[in-house]
């Protein structure tokens, strides 16, 4: 391997972010590089003289450092594991092996670089204008286009790593640890209450960390504020933490070292600063052209000399400070070109003049002169400008330089304000947007608020901190006020110079040029939202942070409107792309287990998911079919026991309990006697079957109701909702998780139960549909005599902690009869033999009780129940379909559930349940069909894999039609 590349940095400075004692090695595009701990990939590479850091998305143009703060969407890397790693903000780790995303061949010899030469053939929205004729060719074109598009590659073998998540709450949240944020935190902190300050980068200070000549005394200010903050115990500072979204009611999401934090803040101070905005001119995208703050970050944080000789293009006084910083870092300043005709009189300007730097007033950059292969620049052509953004090429002069540093203006980092529903208004004097009306509990301070001077930012922050603290404490909030600010016009209104040959980029993520926006407008896409969608401005990974403002400016000019009238596109989360892993956290997948779960395991149960529950499907070790047959036979011949603890179990109590059930369910319950239970069917308002269960009377004002396993949560919710709407005196207590339950069924079940209880359970004393509360196996138990599976049977409900004891006792007591536990599948078969419907399987989203053979459970004469009104309308009409039983005489072709019942072309219905019945030795099923087909003896056609098979309709139930067994 070759020696790692390393170029020594500028002399150490106090506040640099690199640790010169720790040297790291990493590779980029197959070459080894050295870095210091604390370097980002971009700072290390740029420091080592690498200028080609990535390629653009569409034209594959060379790109380098641009913002150095997370918006360099063209410096995207991958390491075989993670796609789309940001070079400008990702710290170098020892041993990293990185390549640029989306190149064909290599970054240097990127064959797709050809796209740049073809750019004339690829106008705005070009893909809408071609590739679709002839249509049979499109899939090929699409495959090609998909291959060219996209950035990083996913690694399908990458392993999932859980990521932590936390909840938090505070009185005042301050977003951004710059001077205004720190001042706000101090003010809010002194007022008491819990204050949290989050800062995206590794230290407090914000822009003052790299302000250099633009804010000379800043280090001392930051240090003393940091010390002050440390003294306040109620203030927590979280570094390396970035707020990604602001949702309703100040619910914020941040990502930090502890993963995702969800914070509910009573008040929020947005002190997120400003995004520096580029100037637009031909070749403004090439390596070497960068934002002033990017150059300052390189110099002050990483001690990298950004270039040898710079042209500094400014539209404000700040840029003069940048020029001074660069000069101090040993960069030769070719000139300062100032868009403004009348340059400022501030100190920085004065210092630049004193330093003998040439100032070109009223001049902008007409174009950058590319170096070979477009990898870098070798100069700039500077020309006088007028405010309409036309540069005059004829009078352009050459300036030799290898870097153009732009300090022409800002856009507020107002994402969170926009997400929270606040507005940004364009302020023509400042040539930029500023927060307008803010949502309740949200305050803004500092540069995001359009305040730029350091003292003014401190004052603004302090005021906002005070406002937030007052809001959080429920006190009167001091009025909003703007501090006096020595910096009045930080942005140049139109830092854009058209070029007849184009390549003047507005959006770097998507390679959108000035002419693309102008042409989009010509085509009728003349509002910000339409331009965004057609020209894709702001649609890339940086979401327009350094392009939206210029896009609005170009659009305003092209449509003859003011920038404020053009506006901006909607702010949406995330402020910064956020990984799926961080959002997913630990991925919580609870499985619900009944209290008898361990017994099923021990008995060799094969489990299935039933909603969130795990239930025994059948018990091994036999294969599925044999096991089910064995279980069915045990129930029919002797006895079986099944865990039904997943049923919804609800106590309905209160003076109006009976009235409440009368309204919720279709049947009658006010006349239900103590010690009795009854089938309960529920419909929705359109008369569609919604749920069923049993309802038992525990007392005058108390019922115990069961629901289906899958319906329980929804039914409890519905009951509570209706109880409130109707204003009835009733309390709903959900016992679903608190009670376990089992069903003991089979001809021998009375004998077995008798061994466990003193209760008189004789056929006459505890009759079918009786209900008792008694001690069984030493446990207080609710007993219902029910017959879902069509045999003598008892449902036993006990507190969950005793359920396993009861189960054991029943299994033990049933030994002489060879009792057998049975699973969901055997139960399904047993109930079908008995012709009982399963809600959700034998009914669907439109089934009425009349169609499902449940009319007997509907008491239309009641004054009211949910769905009654609808059923009254439906009842007089003939049914469209009806559920009926059928048998298959030829069972070589077995239909499956949901195969259709057809009559010629007509779909008459579908099979809802079907199985081979071990009891009857026949294939039996239930199906919807045309009502005229339900007459026993009718032969229906079922369509199985395109073949019609015949079945004979029979009367339900298949088993024990006289109910002798379940009533015995």
């Amino acid at each position, binding site marked *: 391997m070759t020696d790692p590349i390393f170029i020594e940095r500028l002399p150490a400075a106090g506040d640099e972010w690199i640790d010169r004692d720790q040297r790291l090695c990493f590779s980029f595009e197959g070459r080894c590089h050295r870095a210091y701990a604390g370097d980002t990939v971009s700072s290390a590479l740029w420091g080592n003289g690498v200028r080609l850091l990535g390629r653009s998305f569409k034209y594959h143009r060379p790109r380098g450092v641009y913002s150095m703060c997370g918006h360099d969407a063209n410096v995207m890397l991958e390491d075989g594991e993670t*796609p789309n790693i940001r070079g400008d903000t990702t710290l170098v780790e020892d041993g990293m092996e990185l390549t640029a995303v989306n190149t064909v061949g290599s970054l240097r010899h990127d064959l797709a670089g050809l796209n740049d030469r073809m750019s004339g*053939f690829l106008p705005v929205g070009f893909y809408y204008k071609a590739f*679709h004729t002839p249509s049979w060719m499109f899939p090929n074109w699409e495959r090609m286009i998909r291959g060219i598009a996209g950035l990083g590659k*996913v690694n399908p073998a990458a392993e999932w790593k859980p990521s932590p998540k936390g909840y938090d709450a505070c009185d005042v949240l301050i977003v951004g640890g710059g001077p205004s944020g720190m001042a706000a935190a101090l003010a809010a902190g002194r007022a008491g209450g819990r204050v949290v300050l989050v800062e995206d980068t590794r230290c407090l200070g914000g822009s003052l960390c790299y302000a250099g000549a633009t804010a000379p005394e800043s280090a001392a200010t930051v240090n003393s504020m940091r010390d002050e903050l440390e003294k306040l115990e109620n203030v927590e500072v979280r570094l390396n933490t970035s707020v990604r979204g602001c949702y309703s009611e100040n619910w914020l999401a941040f990502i930090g070292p502890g993963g995702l934090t969800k914070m509910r803040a009573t008040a929020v101070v947005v002190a997120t600063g400003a995004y520096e905005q580029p100037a637009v001119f031909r070749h403004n995208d090439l390596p070497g052209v960068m934002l002033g703050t990017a150059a300052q970050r390189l110099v002050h944080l990483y001690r990298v000399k950004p270039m040898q000789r710079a042209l500094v293009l400014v539209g404000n006084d700040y840029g003069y400070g940048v020029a001074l910083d660069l000069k101090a870092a040993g960069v030769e300043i070719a000139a300062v070109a100032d868009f403004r005709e009348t340059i400022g009189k501030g100190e920085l300007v004065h210092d630049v003049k004193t330093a003998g730097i040439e100032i070109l007033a009223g001049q902008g950059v007409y174009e950058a002169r590319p170096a070979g292969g477009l990898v870098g620049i070798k100069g700039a052509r500077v020309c006088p400008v007028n405010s309409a953004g036309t540069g005059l090429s004829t009078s352009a002069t050459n300036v030799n330089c290898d870097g153009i540093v732009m300090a022409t203006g800002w856009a507020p980092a107002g994402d969170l304000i926009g997400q929270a529903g606040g507005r940004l208004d364009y302020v023509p004097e400042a040539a930029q947007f500023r927060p307008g009306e803010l949502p309740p509990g949200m305050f803004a301070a500092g540069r995001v608020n359009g305040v730029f001077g350091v003292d003014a930012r401190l004052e603004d922050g302090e005021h906002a901190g005070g406002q937030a603290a007052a809001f959080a404490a429920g006190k009167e909030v001091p009025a909003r006020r703007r501090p006096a600010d020595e910096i009045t016009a930080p942005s140049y209104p139109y830092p854009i110079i058209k070029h007849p040959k184009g390549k003047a980029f507005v959006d770097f993520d998507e390679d959108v040029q000035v002419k693309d926006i102008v042409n989009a407008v010509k085509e009728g896409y003349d509002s910000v939202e339409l331009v965004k969608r057609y020209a894709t401005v702001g649609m890339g990974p940086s979401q327009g942070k350094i392009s939206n403002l210029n896009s609005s400016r170009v659009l305003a000019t092209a449509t003859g409107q003011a920038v404020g009238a053009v506006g901006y596109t909607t702010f949406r989360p995330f402020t910064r792309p956020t990984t799926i892993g961080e959002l997913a956290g630990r991925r919580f997948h609870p499985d619900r287990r009944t209290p008898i779960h361990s017994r099923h395991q021990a008995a060799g149960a094969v489990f299935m998911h039933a909603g969130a529950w795990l239930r025994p499907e059948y018990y091994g070790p036999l294969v599925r079919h044999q096991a089910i047959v064995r279980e069915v036979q045990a129930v029919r011949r002797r006895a079986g026991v099944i865990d039904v603890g997943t049923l919804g179990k609800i106590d309905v109590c209160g003076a109006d309990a009976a009235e409440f059930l009368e309204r919720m369910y279709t049947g009658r319950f006010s006349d239900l006697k103590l010690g009795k239970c009854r089938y309960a069917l529920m419909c929705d308002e359109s008369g569609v079957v919604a749920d069923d269960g049993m309802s038992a009377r525990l007392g005058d004002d108390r019922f115990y109701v069961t629901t289906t396993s899958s319906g329980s949560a929804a039914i409890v919710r519905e009951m509570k909702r209706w109880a409130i709407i109707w204003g009835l005196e009733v309390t709903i207590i959900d016992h679903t998780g608190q009670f376990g339950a089992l069903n003991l069924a089979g001809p021998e079940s009375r004998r077995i139960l008798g061994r466990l209880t003193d209760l008189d359970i004789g056929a006459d004393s505890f009759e079918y549909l009786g209900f008792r509360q008694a001690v069984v196996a030493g446990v207080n138990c609710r007993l219902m005599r029910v017959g879902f599976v069509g045999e003598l049977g008892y449902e036993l409900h006990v507190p969950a902690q005793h359920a396993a004891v009861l189960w054991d006792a029943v299994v033990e007591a049933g030994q002489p009869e060879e009792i057998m536990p049975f699973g969901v599948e055997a139960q399904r078969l047993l109930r079908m033999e008995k012709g009982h419907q399963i809600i*959700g399987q034998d009914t669907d989203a439109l089934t009425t009780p009349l169609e499902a053979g449940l009319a007997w459970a509907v008491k239309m004469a009641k004054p009211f129940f949910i769905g009654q009104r609808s059923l009254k309308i439906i009842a007089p009409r003939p049914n469209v379909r009806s559920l009926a039983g059928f048998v298959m005489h030829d069972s070589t072709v077995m239909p499956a559930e949901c195969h259709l019942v057809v009559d010629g072309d007509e779909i008459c219905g579908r099979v809802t349940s079907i199985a081979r019945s071990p009891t009857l030795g026949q294939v039996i099923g239930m199906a919807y069909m045309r009502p005229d087909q339900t007459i026993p003896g009718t032969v229906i056609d079922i369509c199985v894999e395109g073949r019609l098979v015949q079945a004979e309709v029979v009367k339900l139930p298949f088993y024990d039609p006289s109910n002798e067994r379940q009533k015995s």
Partner: protein
Amino acid sequence: MPHRLLRFGLSKKYNEPRMFRSPEQLKKSYDVVIIGAGGHGLATAYYLARDHGITNVAVLERAYIGGGGTGRNTAIVRANYLTPEGVAFYDESVRLFQDLSADFDLNLFYSQRGHFTLAHSDASLRTMRWRAEVNKHLGVDSELVDTAFIKEKCPHIDLSCGGHAPVMGALFHPPGAIARHDAVAWGYGRGADQRGVEIHQQTEVTGILVEGDKVTGVQTNRGTVETSKVVCAVAGYTPPLLEMVGIKTPLVIQPLQACVSEPLKPWLDTIIVSASLHLYVSQSSRGELVTGASLDPYPIHSTRSTLDFVEGLSGHLLDLFPFLGDVKIMRQWAGLSDVTPDFSPIMGLSPVEGFYLDAGWGTWGFKATPVCGKTMSYTVAENKPHPLIEPFRLSRFKEFELVGEKGAASVGH
């Protein structure tokens, strides 16, 4: 390089004509006023002009073309519905979509990917079989497939679903497609505009004039216009408009959210839907994962995003694609869905003469854009419902003749 792009490289000037004009003023009267320049409104205008010769038409839009559900949806097009009425209707739309790029001479990136609806339980396997059977019976390409088949078409999927609720099979619908949603609106808009229809953006309808029980005009923020026919094609904004004419419907407005990832190289060719996981995902031709869930579980007229949504969705994405942990979500958003109790639309005539409804699009209306245009234009021109939309009449709720599509529409969109 397709030859169609040559003209751009070879010409000095940019000679592309406007897609749609922006007329200065509203006329005094129109034969038909369409409210809403979403896909449906524009398609209705297009076919009114093209197929029925009715060109004195204004489409009024409160914001910008395609800014409602049309520009927010996840652009899944399919016909594997559950009811014969639904299948016939959406199948016609799929057919129309297939020719639309050529029809418009605008590439809609209509991309047939194949659509899987995964089943993680017996119960959903049953529903999938039901849909497959109905679809096949009606001639729609749709099949219940096993896990091996899913794995073959989508090799990176984790069928064990992280061990939680393993995939047991799927409904596979080969014609399932995605498209560039905005372009659909633009294409219809351009076609309508070329045929004389006026599209007025930034024009909000604030009132509907009714005399007796007949429509006579509409009021807007830019003045009043006379008309005897109004088509209401405002999807998520339907309730306030119906209030203006006093029509009651069982529509409920619920938000529906979605999000996109950063662009990635292609790795997912199919559309994957899982109702149990409340998840669907496809990869756009730009390389972004476009993904969403089921409706927000409460009615509210708000398009604000929620964190819950994207957290839940992320977890479920990892259930199926555990390697996506380091992939970043770039943006999330929300739209309004006008949901009906039976998950089918409300279309056709209304109790007010001259007021035509195209509503109840919930989470499923993008795919219906062409067929809506076709059938609504017929309905308006003939003043009688097109046979394909007869089952979707408003009165079906009174008559209890619902077209139950919940099982096929609630997450699949």
